[in-house]
Every structure is written in C-alpha cells, then in structure tokens.
C-alpha cells in the first residue's frame, strides 16, 4: 500500500460540499412537513398551524425513525462505500507523481491477481497506517451512519470498504494491517466523528447560522454532511435525533509546554509547545448504555514533538451498573463496561498505535458533599498494534506489528465535579508478528494536578514516566525510560 491522499480526498469532498449547499437550501426554503419546531419569527401562519397539527401526531415513517433521523438507505450506503473507493482512486491518479500513477490503474485482471495473491504486511509510514487508514475507514463507516444504519450495521461497511480497496483500489498487494486498522480504526473514528459532527449541527436553526453549522459539521464528517446537502436534510427544520444528544458533555482545552527527557533525566530537554483538546461525550461510568458510543472520550494533542503527537478514542460499546445503588449523586456506584479503543502516539521518544477492546470497572464514592473519588481498573486485548522498533523495511517503515494485551488502573479526585488530582498506571504487551521478532512491554505512571484559577480557567501540571523494554529474539534487549513533564493552562467547558 502506498500513502493515501487523505487530505486530497477531503479537499475534493469539501469542494463538492461547498458547491452543494445552494442547491440543497434552494429546495428547502419552506419548513419541513415533519418539523415540529416552534415558529422562529412572528405568529403562526395557517400553513404553520397545519404543520403544528402534523407535528402533534405521532411520527410514522418506516424509512425515518424520527423526523431528524437520516433516511434508511442500505443499498445507497453500500454504493457510497464503493464510490468513496473510486474517489480515493481518482484523487490518487490525479495528484500522484507520474511514476506512481500506475499503481492506481486497476482493472479486473489486477483485481483477480490481488485476490489470488492474498494478504501480506505493508511498508507504509506510521502516519499512513495508523492514522490515514483509520481515517479512510471512518469514511466507509459514516456512509452507513449517514444513510440511517445503526452502529453495528455500519461496522461491516468499514470492512467492505477496506476489502474492496485492498483488492480493487490499487495495484499494491492487499495488506493485513490495512484491513484491521481501516476496519477497527474506521469504526472508532467514524462513530466519534459522526457524533461530534451532530454536536455541531442544530437542525432547529435556519439561515446563515444553520448553514455555517452544517458546513463545519461536514468538515468533521464529510460523508454525512455530503449526504445531508444532497438529500436536502441540511435545510429541513426538525428536532435533532435523540440518539445524538449526549447525556452530558465536557470539554477542556489545554495549551502549554511539554518536556520529554531521556533515560530518567529531564536535564537538557527542550520544551515543545502543545495544544490539547479533551472531549467527554456522555458519561462512561453512568447508567446503562443504550447504544455503542453513547459515551466516549477523545484526547487529541497537536505539537509536543510532532504535528499530531497523541490521539486517543475510548468508546463504550456496552455498559451497566453493578449491583443496586440507592440513587443520587452522593451514593457509591460501580460500573462495568466494554470499551473500544483507538490509539495514536507519535513523539520524539516512541511511536505506538493500535486498536483494542477492553473491559473496565469503575467506582464512584463521595468523600464529602464537595469531594468525590472515581477509581478505574481496565484490561483487554490489543487486536493489532504498531510500535517503533529496530525493524527497518524500506525507507518508510521502522516499526513492528502485533497483537497483545493492555491493562491499567487509576483514580481521580473531583471537587464539585472538577478533577483536581489524578493518578494512573497503564501497561501494554505486544508480541511481534511482523517486524523484528520481539516482545515489547511498555508501562506508564502518571500524575496530574489541576488548580482552578478563575471561572473556567485553571492551571495544570502532569508528570509522567514511561518505561519500555523490548526483548528481541535476534538482537540485544533494549530498555528505554522517558520522563515527561507538562505545564499548561486549561479551559474547561
């Protein structure tokens, strides 16, 4: 597999999207028949009164579970998945250097050659394999979500898109790591982007504010946005679908400096500026889950040693309370959940990326009316991970692939809902199945302190210690230790 032009494809999609709004809105100057939002200006017109009457009746439409829900079109979703591959293929044909265009000229004989050859491991860069492919998979997945399919119905579309791309989209031999990363990463990123875009959209609004929100949402989830502009849903005035309204929403934005040391010492480390965004959608350890990813966490860090140095998604697939609680915020509660994880870490000290499925147990206990303590234990399987190593395959690849395990735990002290102190431990084992034959063990110990300054503004510091040991079969074992210190201002919403 060669690097995919994600940015190029995105630009092409956005160009179509930007051209589309005029058409879509031109068709939707009147409020939607199914809308039951109150009038924005003036009194009720006779038409509006009829609309209100319509809205008062129970909504019944087999193709749309609710007025604001996307219309259910499974075959269109499949067609879009294949169309996305055509788009990626065409964009690569257009923007690649002349000598590389041949790799994207495919036809049935090439398809058959790829299918009969089977899978191998590829030699792409860490960024392409760990972020580019999951991003491409997110496009396939959201094609399902944009056409009214559920999370679980959309998941096979990520696999379908990946398989058809690997077999038919290019001449490079199909690669096993691409199949796993595109499918699983695509599901994690896809549902996260889909729900994040729905946080931005407000289908009750009209006019320029509405259009702006639809366009910004399309940047996060291009496929859903494109579908909405083409179908005219982007202009319909309706309620937001209930499934896209989180039970709670927390976001924090950090800006600061990060120092990464080497071998126990921070002396001589130069500070790298960073910006970090943390999003808490729903509450992971609360209630019984209704749908996958109705609660998830996202950490995204720019700078700090790389353009994107950290991206983590943790989405709850299933969760429920353990035992009975007496109710109320003050009562202790325990939860168990199954969590799907996406990881991307790229900095001067190490690289790690992977897809995981874990079990997590959480507990919440009140220490006083103002103070609460949350504890977590988690463990599970690393379906496929990638970690930098002694392995070199071509100019682009210096990392191993393999499955493994992840585990850890932690506690957070909260004052009036504000996290003021956190301690956590995480461990990971990865066994190489492609690369330099080895077992990689990585552990991290981390402490956070955050002090409120004024209003939503606070100041925080994080001390982290990462220990990594790689046991190579055909080389000396390697022990690496990286202390890390971050100081930052944080704004919490």
């Amino acid at each position, binding site marked *: 597999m060669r690097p995919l032009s994600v940015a190029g494809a995105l630009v092409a999609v956005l160009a179509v999207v930007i051209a589309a709004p005029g058409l879509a809105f031109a068709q939707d100057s009147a409020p939607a028949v199914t809308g039951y939002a109150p009038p924005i200006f003036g009194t009720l017109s006779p038409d509006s009164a009829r609309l209100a009457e319509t809205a008062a009746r129970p909504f019944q439409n087999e193709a749309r579970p609710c007025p604001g829900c996307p219309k259910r079109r*499974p075959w269109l979703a499949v067609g879009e998945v294949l169309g996305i591959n055509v788009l990626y293929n065409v964009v690569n044909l257009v923007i690649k250097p002349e000598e590389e265009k041949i790799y994207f000229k495919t036809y049935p004989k090439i398809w058959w050659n790829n*299918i*009969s*050859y*089977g*899978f*191998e*491991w590829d030699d792409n860069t860490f960024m392409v394999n760990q972020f580019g492919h999951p991003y491409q998979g997110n496009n396939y997945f959201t094609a399902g979500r944009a056409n009214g399919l559920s999370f*679980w*119905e959309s998941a*096979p579309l990520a*696999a379908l898109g990946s*398989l058809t791309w690997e077999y038919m989209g290019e001449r490079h*031999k199909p690669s*096993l790591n691409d*199949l*796993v990363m595109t499918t699983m990463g695509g599901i994690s990123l896809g549902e996260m982007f889909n729900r994040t875009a729905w946080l931005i959209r407000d289908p009750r609004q009209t006019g320029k504010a509405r259009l702006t929100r639809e366009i910004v949402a399309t940047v996060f989830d291009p496929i859903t946005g494109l579908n909405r502009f083409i179908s005219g849903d982007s202009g319909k005035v309706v309620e937001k679908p209930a499934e896209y309204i989180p039970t709670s929403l927390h976001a924090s934005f950090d800006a600061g400096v990060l120092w990464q040391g080497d071998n126990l010492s921070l002396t001589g480390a130069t500070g790298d500026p960073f910006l970090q965004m943390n999003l808490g959608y729903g509450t992971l350890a609360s209630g019984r889950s209704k749908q996958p990813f109705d609660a998830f966490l996202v950490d995204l860090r720019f700078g700090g040693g790389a353009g994107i140095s950290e991206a983590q998604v943790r989405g709850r697939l299933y969760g429920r309370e353990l035992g009975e609680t007496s109710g109320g915020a003050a009562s202790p509660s325990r939860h168990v959940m199954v969590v799907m994880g996406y990881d991307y870490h790229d900095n001067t000290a190490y690289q790690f990326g992977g897809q995981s499925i874990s079990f997590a147990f959480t507990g919440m206990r009140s220490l006083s009316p103002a103070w609460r303590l949350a504890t977590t234990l988690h463990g599970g399987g690393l*379906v*496929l991970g990638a970690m930098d190593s002694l392995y070199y*395959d071509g100019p682009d690849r210096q990392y191993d692939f*393999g*499955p493994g395990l992840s585990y850890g735990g932690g506690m957070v002290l909260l004052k009036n809902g504000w996290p003021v102190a956190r301690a956590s431990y995480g461990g990971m084992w990865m*066994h*190489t*199945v*492609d*690369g330099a*034959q080895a077992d990689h063990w990585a552990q991290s110990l981390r402490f956070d302190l955050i002090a409120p300054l004024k209003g939503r503004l606070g100041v925080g510091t994080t001390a982290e210690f990462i220990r990594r040991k790689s046991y190579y*079969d*055909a080389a000396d074992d390697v022990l690496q230790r990286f202390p890390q210190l971050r100081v930052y201002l944080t704004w919490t919403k």
Partner: protein
Amino acid sequence: MDEVTTVSGGHAVRTVVAATLGLLMVVAPATAQSPAKPERGDFALALGVGYAAAKADCSNCSPEGEYGSGAVYSDVAAIAVAPVWRVNSRVVAGAELQIETSRNDARAVYLMGIVRFHPWAGKGFFIRGGYGLLQVKAPLDLPDGTVNTAKYRGMALNYGAGWMFHQNRRFSWGPYGAHYVGTLGSAVIGSFQAQNIIGNTWLAGFAVVID
C-alpha cells in the same frame, strides 16, 4: 528461490470462488422467499466441513527480499466446530475451532472468536468475521533440499459470507465461504530464518447448525 511451503494444485482459488458464488446464486431465490421463523434458544452448535486452498509466504522468501516467492496454493480439508450464542435476531457470536490438514500432513488449528451477522432478519444470507489464534504444524521444504517439521503459533483472522436454510429451526444448514489469514511472525526453519510468515486460506464449506 527459498520456498517455505510445499507446492501443489493449480487454479484452486478460482475454483473455490466460482463454486461458492455458484452455490450462493442457486440458493438465493429459494431462501429469499422463506418467512421469518420464531427464534429458538440462545445457544447453538455449528459443525462445518469444507475444502480449502492454502499457501504461505514470507518477506524474505524471494530473491528480492520481499513477499512474492512464487508459493502457490495447496489443497486442504477442513472441519470446524463452533459453539455460538444468539445475541439478537440478527447477530450470533461465539467461538470456532477449525482444523485443516493437507495431503503432505501439514496441519493448521484455528481457535477464534467469531461473529455472524444477518443483514436482513429472517433471511438466510449472512456475513461473518473472526479473530484469534493459529497453530501450524508443517513439514517444510527447505532451500537446502531437506524437509523439516515444525510447530508455530500466531494470530489469525477470517471473514466470509454464506447462506442458512431453515433458520431458527432445530437444524439449519447451508454453504459458506471464508478467507482465513494467519500470521506467524519470524521462524527459524532448519538453517533458514523465514521472516514475517503469512498464510492465506480460501475455504468453501458446508455447515449444519443444531439449535
């Protein structure tokens, strides 16, 4: 050229795919008309048997030091047993133990978690996927002309599709096809270290499900 696997067979894959597609086309009209049946218990046992075409390759098995040693497919017989649980009317999940054996006594054992998904509730068509462990015991032709039998373990996944007749009855049955990919990492075989071994197996099978 350093080959890791023994060589036999011809256009096995083409035959497998053609046979699978043919079976699917034949059974489609019949099953499409069958109405949804009431659901049975949560637990079921699936038994499968099939023919497969399998090959293995490694990243330094060709003179150029990359995949593409020229390894070709061998004929393989496979049996499988899978205890599964019905998650809902469209999803079945469980474990699968599959044993494959070839004419030259190579044997592969897959132990995987599997999920079967019926896009249309009550209809026979399903897609499936799995992930788990693989153990291979195989006599290998070495570059120096000797044969070495070795046992290796690794990671495997599979995906496929099929059709079930008489869903939700005591006995249901139908054809299925699947692609198994197994990866063993690097292995010392005699005096040769094969790096990043990966195997591809295309299976056409027939399953009976006892509900």
